[in-house]
């Protein structure tokens, strides 16, 4: 027995390539509860990229382990996860927090333990607080709500809009920015209505909107509310153009609202079309092969985050948190969504942003910046 065991041990030691170094990446997102789908598919994109690299022996002999934790989209839970990553010395970079609200509570902790993070929360405030150990490899809401406002004014010749917000961090933030941009461009916001984030019935809100007959309705909310809104809007005979943020960029949006109810709806997201480049098409194919389902709305960003980490590991002087942070802030990398680099506060210098229009059963690119 003993001999067999030591033999096995010897074999396995031989099997692993020597001098390999291993780092851990802290992955934090909601993995249970209603938002689990987004957290899981986002992380899957990252794993997809790195499983391949790991299998090939990693970057310069460095392979990546995942320390995946559920933050339940809850700020308190988020701080515990953050501390867990901080305490684990093998974790040298974090891919953390899908929700801005959670990021608000965890960023000070990462800052204290000097753990560099790629943050996914898109609230503009996050980068305004002087954190030195964070970058945001995704367009913030400022960029993301500018495009729809411009499009509404210039392409749709809209004069008036009604804004609906779910009074959550994301929904309220992005709809305010839309409103500001829409007004700045000469449009008029007739009314701003708020709904509860748990609402499913918008008929009474829609009856209010119908009476105002705006050209455009902007709904700052997430799935499934925007699908419900689109469906009920159609059923109640409201004919304005509907614009929604990134949550709508999923086939679920069309199936849940009903294909007939979402025709012409505009969806803004930081994600380029899946056929925009060979790299993205390749990604979509790989994802489906590996996970047996279509990529989630943010899977491509997980993949891009994997590409950023690869570039960071190629350019870093060492594997300490500080060295990785330094490399992260100056990295310039060609990714599936284009060339990315960060400015002083960790924001993308050029943040890609796209606008889609629902046509038939599909999203057609209507504009980008």
């Amino acid at each position, binding site marked *: 027995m003993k001999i067999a065991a030591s033999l096995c041990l010897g074999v396995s030691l031989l099997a692993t390539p020597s001098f390999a170094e291993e780092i851990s990446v802290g992955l934090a997102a909601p993995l249970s509860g209603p938002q689990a789908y987004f957290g899981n598919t986002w992380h899957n994109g990252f794993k997809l990229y790195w499983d391949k690299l790991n299998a090939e022996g990693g970057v310069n002999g460095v392979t990546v382990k995942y320390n995946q934790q559920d933050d339940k989209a809850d700020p308190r839970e988020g701080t515990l996860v953050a501390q867990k990553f901080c*305490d684990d010395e093998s974790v040298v970079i974090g891919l953390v927090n899908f929700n801005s609200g959670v990021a*608000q509570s965890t960023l000070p902790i990462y800052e204290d333990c000097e753990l560099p993070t790629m943050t996914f929360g898109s609230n503009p405030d996050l980068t305004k607080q002087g954190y030195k150990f964070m970058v945001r490899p995704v367009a913030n809401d400022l960029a993301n709500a500018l495009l729809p406002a411009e499009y509404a004014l210039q392409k749709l010749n809209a004069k008036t809009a009604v804004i609906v917000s779910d009074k959550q961090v994301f929904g309220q933030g992005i709809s305010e920015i839309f409103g500001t941009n829409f007004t700045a461009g000469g449009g008029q916001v007739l009314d701003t209505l708020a709904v509860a984030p748990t609402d499913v019935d918008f008929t009474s809100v829609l009856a209010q909107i119908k009476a105002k007959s705006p050209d455009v309705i902007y709904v700052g909310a997430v799935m499934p509310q925007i699908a419900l809104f689109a469906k009920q809007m159609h059923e109640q005979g409201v004919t304005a153009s509907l614009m929604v943020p990134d949550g709508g960029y999923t086939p679920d949006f069309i199936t849940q609202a009903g294909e007939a109810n979402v025709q012409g709806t505009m969806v803004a997201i930081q994600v380029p079309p899946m056929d925009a480049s060979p790299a993205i098409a390749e990604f979509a194919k790989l994802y489906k092969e590996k996970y047996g389902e279509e990529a989630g709305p943010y899977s491509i960003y997980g993949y891009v985050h994997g590409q950023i980490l690869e570039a960071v590991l190629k350019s870093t002087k060492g594997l300490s948190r500080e060295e990785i942070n330094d490399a992260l802030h100056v990295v310039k990398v060609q990714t599936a969504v284009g060339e990315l680099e960060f400015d002083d506060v960790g924001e993308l210098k050029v943040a890609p942003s796209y606008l889609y229009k629902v046509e038939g059963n599909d999203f057609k690119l209507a504009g980008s910046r």
Partner: protein
Amino acid sequence: MSVAGISSSAKPQASRLVAILVLAAIVALVAATPFLPNYHIRVVNSLLIYILLGIGLNIVIGYTGLLDLGFVAFYAVGAYTYALLASPQLDLHLPFLLIVGIAAVLGMITGILLGIPVLKLRGDYLAIVTLGFGEIIRIVINNVDWLTGGPKGIARLDKASILGVEIARPVEIYWLLLVTVFLVGLFVWRLERSILGKAWAAIREDQDAARGIGINTTNAKLAAFATSATIGAIAGTIFAASQRFVSPESFTLQESVLIVLMIVIGGIGNILGIVAGAAILILLPELLREFAEWRILFLGILMVVLIIVRPAGIVPRTFGPEKLIRGLFGK
């Protein structure tokens, strides 16, 4: 139910052993925590905050027998008091202890204001009305953006400091919480044994008979509500100071329900029960962290099983700190 006093005194040895074991476990945990990694300290801190909340709510539920499902409102009052008075939001940076005082007073006032109209209701009606008040407070906080930042919450809260000593690292927060839990626990324990505490128990047992012996039940209940709210608000300030970020999503109905569950599963009306309940509902899911959704399923089933097996809670009402201390000295 047997005559607890008699049956326990019949076997002093056994209870002494239990007392020593329980006390030793508590002392060991308290002493070991500062040497644990920060993550574990944060988990313990979280536990301590819930224990503090449990102690507060227990006054209303366990001692006075009123089902309050809106307790989180007072927690929110405390947290937002700190957030507003020690952050760039209003550009006020008051000292921590002063804010704790202000929060305690505000908590008490809110408790009384909410208490006056609702306390003549009973049972389920009281539960739904307190639930309603809790939700109203959360919705208002979520919507007065100019003051509370709305859903965005308030970030960059000051680090707390007491007499020039900064309290921000997990271990420092741990000491702060430990002292607070101890002091509040002691206060509440003495309160329970005071004449007011006895009146609460009488109201819990039979409100009508309590009136019949001259207890002004409205005032006594208000006192329970106010004390409980004050403790909730104090817990809120420490929570805000440790997280240094507050947003309405920390103060949902689920949070209120969690605290109620903690009290009932642990053992209603008993501080040790609250510790046990918090350990199960806060610590256990944290230990099972790797299992993501399965842990919540497990917790749900465990809750049902525990309630069926021990409907009165894990720790009996009579097995309080007093019993522990008596057991320790073999009395």
